[in-house]
């Protein structure tokens, strides 16, 4: 998946209207909460990326969510 498409998918999954970019702090995204993390876990699972709730601890930026997707992002 292309990075821009992934950023759009992230926004849709988190149910946020903000336009995401790599440098954004996750804590500045109002919708990034425990519900969003459930949705993100499901999203990664559907992409074939194995994640656990612990993977979401200590994430700081949107770029960390991209890193979590590993080689699924071009």
């Amino acid at each position, binding site marked *: 998946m292309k990075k821009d498409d992934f950023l759009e998918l992230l926004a849709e999954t988190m*149910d946020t209207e903000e336009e995401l970019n790599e440098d954004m702090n996750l804590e500045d995204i109002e*919708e990034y909460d*425990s*519900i969003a*993390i*459930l*949705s993100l*876990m*499901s999203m990664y*699972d*559907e992409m074939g990326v194995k*994640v*656990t*709730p612990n993977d*979401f601890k200590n994430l700081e930026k949107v770029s960390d969510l991209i890193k979590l997707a590993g080689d699924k992002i071009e």
Partner: protein
Amino acid sequence: MAKLHFENIKISGIVTTTGDKKVTIEEEASNYGYNEKMVKRLKKRMGFNSRYVVSDDNICTSDLCIQSSEVIFEKFDKSDVEALIFVTQTPDYKAPSTAIIMADRLGLGNDVIAYDINLGCSGFINGLLNAYTLINSGLKKVLLCVGDVASKFAYYKDKNLTPLMGDAGSAILIEKKEGFNADFVLHSDGGGYKHLIVPDGGCRNPFNEESLKEIETEEGIRRGIDMYMNGGEIFNFTIKVVPKMFDELFEYAKISKDEIDYFVLHQANKYILQNISKRLEIDEDKLPMDTMTIYGNQNSASIPGTINGFLEKEFQNRKKVVFAGFGIGLSWGACVVDLENVYTPKIRRYNEKR
């Protein structure tokens, strides 16, 4: 995976009783520290709305199940009932088994087998399996009672667990009858026991003065004697095991998804059920998912609760139905059964007049 096949056993009646008091997420938002915006988000995304709980601390799961059982016995003769199985995490006493007391209250006589099973979300499937096994071994009729008064273990300030939970008790009558088959698949994984647990009050961590002290974490406020849930771990477990279990069931029972009329799943919450229905590509009309939104997550009573709440007119003509439960233990199981001419009156509240 344990796999079991049964022939000539029928579910004849399903009755569910909920707690007598309705509460809404708006009324309770301040207990959890939720602002208006968060309440809106939880309603939209997770399907939070209302739940039915008992109005009095003295009302136990057994009382809800007794009301359900009495409705069953208005329709069916109780003299052939040879066993009462009670699946619950909220028994009347630590000992003895509540089922024995219930059998006496229901006037089932001294010849019945009666015992409790300690299970939650997967409890209906495991309870049904026990009932089928007893019928298969020669008993005429088995009364299965399932449910929980979750109010007893969900702390009022626990924003993570409590807004999900509802109180309910169901009674299900199972008997011998030609032409009705069932297939079961079941699993358990004790490696995940810490993700849903009441830590204090058993032998491992006996009740002590610390047990009543509030513990505050990111996930909410609760005490040692209350249920703890790691929502992320449970969600992750569910989306991984449930779709796989359906494949196992279809293969074992030699049926295809399209032959199934209804999928009645444990009503953890609407969000999980939407997720499962999407993954399995099941039409949402065949997979009811509003039970938690209206009544709350009824633990082991959530599958019968969904039938009496939303499908009470559907099981007169023959249908093939999948039941699936998943959660505390961790424990998960599913079965496919034939349903026809089942007595399924509309769900009722405790002490509600008809």
